[in-house]
């Protein structure tokens, strides 16, 4: 069936669009070229390498920890790539939440901007900003899932149960995203510190 082909093509398109770190947010996921052949995924390879190093470092491998530091220094484009990915994802979810209408889209975008500003604070670090963007996308996904779960216009009981489960999963994912940001701020609170913080004691300062 044509629509089933569309489903497969959309998945392939989303994968290929987010495939490389050099990818720029040129359009929503459904605007991607559906007919393109599947490419190798360097972004997934980078992520897998990073995950492997992090897992080894967490297990106590000092060499892996050093490699992890070098890896992050050598790949500054990762932050930009994830930022672009967040923008693409946000656009795709806004398209789902607000099907048509400029006014609705504008309203949702403003609400998201406000939410992001509140979460980010005045001086967010790059990672904090990425986490805030992630929370915003999770918020949209949760909102969409709730809208579908609340829709009682049609469908069978198993379909309604599935929509409810999706809604619960989306809520869990949203809460996990918030917890990640909170954990990062509690453990490595670089972004919340003001740029010109008050210093009560400066060890090397000579008063007279």
């Amino acid at each position: 069936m044509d629509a089933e082909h569309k489903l497969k093509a959309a998945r392939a398109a989303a994968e290929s669009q987010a495939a490389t770190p050099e990818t720029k947010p040129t359009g929503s996921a459904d605007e991607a070229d559906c007919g393109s052949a599947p490419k190798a995924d360097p972004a997934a390879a980078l992520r897998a390498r990073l995950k492997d190093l992090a897992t080894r470092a967490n297990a106590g491998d000092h060499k892996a920890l050093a490699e992890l530091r070098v890896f992050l220094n050598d790949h500054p484009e990762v932050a930009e790539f994830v930022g672009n990915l967040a923008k693409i994802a946000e656009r795709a979810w806004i398209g789902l939440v607000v099907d048509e209408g400029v006014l609705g889209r504008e309203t949702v975008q403003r609400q998201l901007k406000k939410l992001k500003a509140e979460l980010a604070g005045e001086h967010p670090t790059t990672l904090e900003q990425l986490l805030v963007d992630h929370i915003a996308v999770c918020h949209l996904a949760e909102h969409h899932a709730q809208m579908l779960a609340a829709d009682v216009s049609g469908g069978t009981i198993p379909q309604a149960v599935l929509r409810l489960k999706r809604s619960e999963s989306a809520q869990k994912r949203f809460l996990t995203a918030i917890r990640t940001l909170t954990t990062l701020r509690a453990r490595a609170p670089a972004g919340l510190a003001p740029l010109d913080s008050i210093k009560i004691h400066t060890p090397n300062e000579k008063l007279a």
Partner: protein
Amino acid sequence: MAWKTRSGHRYYYRTRWQDGRSQTIYYGRGAEAEKQAQQDADRHREKQTRRARLLADEARVAAAELLLHQLTDWTAVLTMATLLLTGHYNHHGTWRRKAFLP
């Protein structure tokens, strides 16, 4: 729902499931048969359209879900890397500070 040919004539039948068994209703080959056939065809077309719309929506949701999964994976691994580099380790899902930094 089908036209069946018997002795060179077309007759319309509608089959439906009722009370746990299949029931076939005969409409003959007159105006009533044409009317019922048209109604069934319209209903079928509407159902197909609805199904196609549903699948298209599902495809859009699947694409957005995929992007969100990738974003989730990236943010998780970057957070993990940052916390490890700031002298923490993960103990069964909980982040703890190392007693001695390497």
